[in-house]
């Protein structure tokens, strides 16, 4: 492919969201008839890059040229017209419409102003066949299809638009082996037909099999481009990390991680296709991290402990005794004493229009009231304690919590649960989108709580955090615990390579040997 004329070029593309730099002078070259892999860890800017390409977000600066002439895309439709079609990670299918309706949705064939259903059916069948998914009926409703089939529909839909550049963002993450093989042969055929393919995946073996060219992104910049196969996996991981430690973490206590008696224990937890025989223990005074790529079942695991999931198999033990946790109310009950700091504080953690005071005391109202009447004095004392402990900066307790900064909002969520003095604290990526200063305060707090005897299970998408805060880290992949990293093993390199499942076969702990 060397020396081929570039079909598409991006130069100096930058994009900010508020104060966060998602892309910083990014460059990219795409040539026809090749598969170009984009690599990078969570938040490296890959998603923003393709959103810019596909016309979903407008870049703050930089230029794009297609066939040598400059282009700008005001909408996804404009990008489609120019021949750039993207298959997004979050599916873009309309659930209540049929497969055929979805495939032609951007540009349905019409006759006398009405949609020509025969032509639509024909186009859909052709596209499904081209995507190697002729087994899907064009009249089936998308919402009735399992996730893996939807992904095939998504690919057929993209092909029906006759793209010149096809972008696949984690297109195989929902697929099983047989479907992946099918897609690979489709992609290789498309490459022979002269399409340019951009392939974003975290699965190194897929990239090794498919890609002609690779570009690595880090912190919103493209840090390296190379011909596929010219670098080892370890070199690639090195390129993906390359990041300085920017946070100050409290010192970890020096002791054997397994010394503490387990407060929280899971035995072979499985749920639908998201959790696969997860077993773990968390002792009193211990901070256990959950690592891995986004969406490998970490969130579901926390929800499972917190009594949100139905149809869970396996066992949860508290203080060594099996318990059935039927709801969040049961989980926070004093006998279990669990708290979950949710990922999305705006919908699951706070009632934004209500006051700081009301939000703080919600979870503890039963403890603060006698015969249904709230003891105002006790409430005030506890709130004062918490505001002091967490250093919540607010203009007053009676202003809406929505008026606080993100970091202070997160502190309110945490304080709300600490008011119950929980023994088990589950944290779901609590530092996402908050400033560095507040992050540091939260790290100190976590260690303080652990030292006071709490058992903490901490999911984070930030590898630095896991290394700096946790006594142990369990890395999840595809809903299963693939690796446990303790002490000196806990390095960024080990975290990333096990998150990508590079050592998949030999490094995992023995899982599911007996059922």
């Amino acid at each position: 492919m060397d020396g081929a004329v570039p079909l598409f070029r991006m130069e100096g593309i930058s994009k900010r969201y508020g104060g966060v730099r998602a892309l910083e002078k990014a460059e990219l070259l795409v040539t026809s008839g090749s598969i170009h892999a984009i690599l990078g860890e969570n938040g490296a800017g890959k998603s923003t890059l393709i959103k810019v390409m596909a016309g979903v977000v407008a870049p703050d600066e930089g230029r794009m040229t297609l066939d040598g002439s400059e282009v700008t895309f005001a909408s996804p439709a404009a990008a489609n017209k120019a021949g750039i079609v993207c298959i997004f990670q979050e599916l873009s299918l309309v659930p209540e419409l049929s497969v055929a309706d979805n495939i032609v949705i951007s540009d349905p064939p019409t006759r006398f102003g009405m949609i020509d259903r025969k032509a639509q059916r024909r186009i859909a069948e052709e596209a499904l066949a081209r995507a190697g998914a002729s087994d899907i009926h064009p009249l089936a409703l998308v919402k009735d299809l399992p996730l893996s089939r939807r992904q095939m529909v998504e690919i057929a839909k993209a092909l029906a638009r006759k793209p010149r550049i096809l972008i696949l963002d984690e297109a195989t993450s929902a697929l099983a082996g047989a479907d992946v093989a099918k897609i690979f042969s489709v992609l290789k055929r498309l490459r022979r037909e002269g399409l340019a393919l951009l392939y974003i995946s975290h699965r190194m073996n897929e990239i090794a099999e498919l890609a002609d060219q690779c570009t690595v992104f880090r912190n919103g910049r493209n840090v390296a481009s190379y011909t596929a196969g010219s670098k080892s996996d370890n070199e690639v991981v090195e390129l993906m990390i390359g990041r300085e430690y920017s946070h100050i973490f409290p010192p970890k206590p020096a002791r054997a991680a397994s010394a503490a008696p387990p407060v929280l224990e899971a035995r072979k937890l499985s749920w639908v296709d998201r959790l696969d025989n997860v077993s773990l223990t968390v002792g009193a005074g211990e901070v256990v991290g959950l690592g891995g790529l986004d969406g490998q079942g970490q969130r579901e695991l926390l929800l499972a402990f917190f009594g949100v999931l139905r149809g869970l198999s396996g066992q949860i033990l508290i203080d060594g005794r099996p318990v059935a946790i039927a709801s969040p109310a049961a989980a926070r009950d004093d006998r279990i004493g669990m708290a979950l700091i949710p990922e999305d504080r705006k919908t699951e953690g706070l009632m934004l229009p209500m006051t700081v005071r009301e939000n703080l005391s919600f979870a503890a109202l039963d403890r603060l009231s006698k015969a249904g009447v709230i003891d105002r004095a006790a409430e005030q004392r506890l709130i004062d304690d918490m505001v002091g402990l967490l250093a919540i900066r607010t203009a007053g307790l009676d202003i809406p919590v929505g008026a606080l900064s993100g970091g202070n909002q997160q502190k309110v969520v945490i304080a709300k649960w600490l008011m119950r003095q929980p023994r088990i604290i589950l944290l779901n990526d609590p530092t996402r989108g908050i400033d560095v200063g507040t992050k540091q305060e939260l790290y100190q707090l976590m260690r303080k709580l652990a030292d006071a005897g709490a058992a903490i299970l901490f999911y984070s998408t930030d590898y630095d955090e896991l290394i700096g805060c946790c006594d142990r880290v369990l890395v999840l992949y595809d809903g299963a615990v693939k690796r446990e990293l303790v002490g000196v093993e806990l390095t960024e390199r080990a975290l990333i390579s096990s998150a990508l499942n590079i050592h998949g076969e030999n490094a995992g702990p023995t899982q599911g040997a007996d059922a």
Partner: protein
Amino acid sequence: MKDWRYWLAEQRGTLLAFGIFIVMFFIYTANHPAGFTANVVQTASNKGVLLAFVAMAQTLVVVTAGIDLSVGMIFTLTNCLASWLVIGTGIETAFGVVAVLGTGLLCGAINGAIVIYGRLQPIVATIATGAVYFGLALLLRPFPGGSVNEDLADALTGRLFGAVPASLVVLLAVVLVVWVPFSRSVLGRAAYAAGSSETAAYMSGVPIRRGKFAAYALAGLLAAIGGLFLTFFTYTGDAAYASGNAYTLFSIAAVVLGGVSLFGGKGSAIGAIFGALAFRTIGDLLFVFDFDPLWQPLFQGVILLIAVSLGAFALFRVRNRLEWFL
């Protein structure tokens, strides 16, 4: 699976509403002193089509995951307007009809513009515009009165060939001229797609705004056809607040009975028509069984609750409890 089974699955709500209506109507006519006669059918049809038109209007908006609380007031406003304009010579009457329908279309378009381009919530926007439309109706008809071209009125509320109710034929014509082209057009599909998943539709480059706008505007038109028919039945215009509100609420009930999802993206105006006819038949059933008419709201409520509960069964299958609140 065969094609027809997919079709069946898609039309389940509509067929269910059709079934409910047929059963109720059968019980009604079987117990009617006069039995299944052209007269009984004509009366039932004339009562039913009014709500059927308004329910069709509601369907268009509900499909986009919105709601139109002004349909009853557009219905009332166009009734009052028709009692001034749809009168006189043939030409004058024809212009009157066009003006009334145009007014409905304009009302709907205003709703759509406020909701889509003003980004207000449909429920708030249409409560406000509904009040405005009713205010205009009151200015037109402070007291009930006016008149209508009686030749036209009698023709459209009478019978064709001595057997078929003309109002039913008009309803069918409206379905063929308005609903079928809309539901099969690109704009109609955009309305459905926007109602089902607006982000997915946007990501796919669907003309969401135009689709939703068309839905709101056509809803105004359909409500105006209903208002026109009200004038044909009553020969007068009447700015009746209670009746306008009742039509709005009943239209939502009819839509739900007709298998249209209030979450948007699913259902058909045909289902809503049968939902409306079934809802109307409840009152008739009470009549033939000699119940006090005071029971009517209670029974309508119970039937509606049962219909809505059928839709709630899906919640039992949810495995992640957080999805209950989505």
